[in-house]
C-alpha cells in the first residue's frame, strides 16, 4: 500500500487523523528495518536541504533529526540561537525569510514559544516540521512513543497508558494524548492538581491525582521529566515530596503488571520520576524510544518531502 501524503508541514498530532498517524507509523517501520541493515543510508532526500533551526537548546532531538536527515541523504544544516541572527535581535519572521531565500526544502524548528512552528509554516513555502514548540506539542516524540508501545505490545487499541508528572508544561504529554487517544489507547494523566489542571479531562482522557490507584491496570507508564528549577515555587513544595507521591519506586513497581512498559522522554532524573534500577531494568524501553525516534523522524522528513507512505498501515 502506498498513500500520498498531503500535508506540507508536520506541526501537531491534534490535527492528524488516525489514518495519517498510522501512515507515519507504517513508514517508520520500514525505516526501522533499514536502520537494522549494515548500510543504513537511503537516497530518498538526495539533493534536498534540511535546516535544523533549534532556537531552544536540545541535544538529543537535534541529533536525532540530524541523523535522520543524513540517513535519507539530505544536505543538513543546523542552526542554534547562538549561531543564528536571532541572537542579534532578528525576528523569527526575518530568519524565516532568509531561510526561504536559501531555498531550504524542510525546516525543522525547536522553539520555546508555543505556536512557533505554525508561525513559520504560515509564512514559508518550505515544509516545516515541529521539533517541539513551548508547551504545545512535540509530535515526533508522541509518534515515537506510540511506535514503541505498538511494537512492544503489538497494538495500541485498548492499551491502558498512564502519563505521569508535569502535564501542564509538557508538550510530550499533549502529543502523546492526541496520538494515543486517536489510535484507541485509554489514557490517564496523573499528577498533582498544580501540574495537572482539570480542563485536561475535557480532551478525551482521564485525570487522576492518585498514582497508587492507577498502577494495577496500567500497561504502560510514561514518566515525564520534572523541571526542578521552575517547579519548586508555588506548584510543588519540594522535589522530594513529588517523588514520594508520584515517583515510580520499587514498591510501586511491585504492584504493576509484570509486563508493564516503563517510558521516559529523557533526560531522566533518577530517583525522582523513576527509581534508577527501574530505568535500567527489563521493563524499561527508554533507549528503544531513542532508537525508534530516528525511524519516526526519517518517516516524517520523507513524507513532508513528497514521499509516498511506505509499508502496511
Amino acid at each position: 500500500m502506498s498513500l500520498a501524503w498531503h500535508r506540507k508541514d508536520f506541526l501537531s498530532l491534534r490535527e492528524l487523523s488516525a489514518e495519517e498517524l498510522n501512515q507515519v507509523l507504517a513508514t517508520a517501520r520500514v525505516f526501522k528495518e533499514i536502520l537494522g541493515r549494515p548500510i543504513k543510508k537511503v537516497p530518498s532526500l538526495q539533493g534536498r536541504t534540511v535546516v535544523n533551526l533549534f532556537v531552544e537548546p536540545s541535544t538529543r532531538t537535534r541529533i536525532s533529526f540530524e541523523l535522520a536527515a543524513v540517513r535519507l541523504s539530505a544536505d543538513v544544516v543546523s542552526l542554534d540561537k547562538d549561531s543564528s541572527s536571532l541572537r542579534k535581535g532578528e525576528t523569527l519572521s526575518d530568519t524565516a525569510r532568509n531561510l526561504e531565500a536559501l531555498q531550504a526544502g524542510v525546516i525543522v524548528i525547536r522553539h520555546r514559544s508555543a505556536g512557533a512552528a505554525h508561525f513559520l509554516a504560515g509564512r514559508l513555502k518550505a515544509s516545516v516540521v515541529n521539533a517541539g514548540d513551548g508547551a504545545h506539542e512535540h509530535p515526533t516524540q508522541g509518534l515515537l512513543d506510540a511506535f514503541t508501545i505498538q511494537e512492544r505490545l503489538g497494538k495500541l487499541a485498548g492499551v491502558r497508558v498512564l502519563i505521569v508528572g508535569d502535564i501542564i508544561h509538557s508538550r510530550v504529554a499533549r502529543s502523546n494524548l492526541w496520538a494515543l487517544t486517536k489510535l484507541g489507547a485509554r489514557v490517564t494523566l496523573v499528577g498533582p492538581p498544580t501540574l495537572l489542571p482539570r480542563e485536561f479531562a475535557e480532551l478525551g482522557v482521564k485525570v487522576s491525582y492518585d498514582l497508587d490507584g492507577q498502577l494495577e491496570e496500567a500497561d504502560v507508564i510514561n514518566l515525564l521529566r520534572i523541571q526542578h528549577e521552575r517547579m519548586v515555587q508555588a506548584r510543588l513544595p519540594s522535589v522530594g515530596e513529588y517523588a514520594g507521591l508520584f515517583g515510580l519506586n520499587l514498591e510501586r513497581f511491585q504492584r504493576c503488571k509484570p509486563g508493564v512498559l516503563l517510558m521516559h522522554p529523557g533526560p531522566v532524573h533518577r530517583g525522582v520520576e523513576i527509581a534508577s534500577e527501574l530505568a535500567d531494568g527489563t521493563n524499561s524501553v527508554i533507549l528503544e524510544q531513542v532508537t525508534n525516534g530516528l525511524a519516526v523522524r526519517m518517516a516524517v522528513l520523507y513524507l513532508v518531502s513528497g514521499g509516498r507512505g511506505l509499508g502496511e498501515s
Partner: protein
Amino acid sequence: MNEILLQGGRILDPGAQRDAPGDLLIRDGRISGGKPSTGAVVMKLDGLVVTPGLIDPHVHLREPGQSAKETIGTGTAAAAAGGFTSVMAMPNTAPVADGPNTIAWMRQRARETGLVNVFPTGAISLGQKGETLAPIGALRQAGVVAITDDGHCIQSAELMRRALEYARMFDLPVLDHCEDRSLSAGGVMNEGRWSRILGLPGWPGIAEEVMVARNALLAELTGARVVCQHLSSAGSVRILREARARGVRLDGEASPHHLCLTEELVEGYDTNFKMNPPLRTAEDVKAVREAVADGTIRFLATDHAPHCSYEKEVEFDEAPFGVVGLETALGVYLTELVHGQGMPLGEVVARMTYIPSDYFGLGRGTLGEGAVADLTVMDPERKWTVKKEEFRSKGRNTPFEGRELKGRAVLTMVGGEIRHDLDGRAPKK
C-alpha cells in the same frame, strides 16, 4: 453665519428622550433651534439616524513617544471614521502622562492635529509604576477627566485605597485595568480548555475578578467613583452587579471584542486575537452582553490599541497585547447588540453619548439647542466588510478583518465641522 441643515433624518438623542423624524440645524458650530436661512447648506439624510457624537472613554493614541504605532492625528482620524467625536486618551505614553506638562502638551497637540475632541486621562502613580501617587491635583488642573494606570493595575491595595481617597476629594473617576499580576503572571490567553490544548500560559478570569472585588470594597470604603475597564469574565460581571445593587459607585466597561469573540480564535496563534484581558468563553461573552443590556455595564469602550505590524508579527507569547477598535466598534455594537440580541438602538447610543459625557463631565452627548454640534449620522442597516487596509488608523491589528458587519457611521461632525463623510454628502467647497 455658517449653517448646515440636516434634513429628513431620525433624530435620536437618548439623553433628551428624543426619538423622532426631523431636521437639525447647525449654526456656527452649535445646534440651533431657529429657522434655516436661505444660504444654509442642506444635506438630505432620509433613512439615516442622527445621534449626539459618540464617545469612546478608552483609547490609546500613542502620542507622545510611540508615533510609529499611532499619532493623535491618525488616531482621531480613525475615531472620526468610526463615528466618534470624543475620545478619552490613556496615559501610557512615553513619557507617561503623569504630570501636567505632558497633559498640556497632549491637549495642545490635539488642538493642532486632532480631528475629534481628545480628553486626556492622567496616571494614578508616577510612571505607572504603582509605587508613588502622581500629582493628581495638578493633573486635574491640567484638564484630565479621570486617572488610570491602565495596563498596569495597581497591585498594592494600600496605594489603590489612598488613590481613591485622594481622587474622591475632587470626585475624579478612577479607571482600573483589573489584573492581579501574581495570578495572571506570564499569561497570554484565557486559562482554560484552549490554553491547555495550545500550550500557552493562561491568564485566568480569577485574576480579573480578584481586582474587581477589591475595587468594589475600596470604592465602598472611600466613596470614590471607580470604573473597572474592559470586563471580560462572568465572575467580574457578577461582582459588579452585586456591588451596584448595594449602591457602590462602581462601573464597568465592555469592549467590542469581549462582546462577541471567544478563546478558540487563538487556535491559529494569530496575534490579532491577543489582547489584555484575553478573549474568554462563550459563557463569559454571554454574561458581558447581558450586563450591557441590563445596565450593569454602562460604558462601551474600544480599548483601541494600535501596534506596528512588525511588532505583532512575532511568536504569540512575544507579541504585545492589544487590538485596534475605533473603526469597527460601532458596527460591532450594532451587529451584536441591536441586530443580534434586540437591544434598542437608543440604549446602545445612550451608553456611547450622554452616559459617559455626564459621568466624566465632558459637556457633550446631547443634541439640545445650544449644544456644541458634535454629532454622528449612522446607517444601522448598512452592511459592510471590515478591510484593515482601509483603516485611517496606523494600526492594522484588528480581530475583525473580513467580518461582515451591519451598521456604520456615514458622517461625523465635530463642533459643526465635518470630519468624516463616507458617501460624499457634503457639498464640495
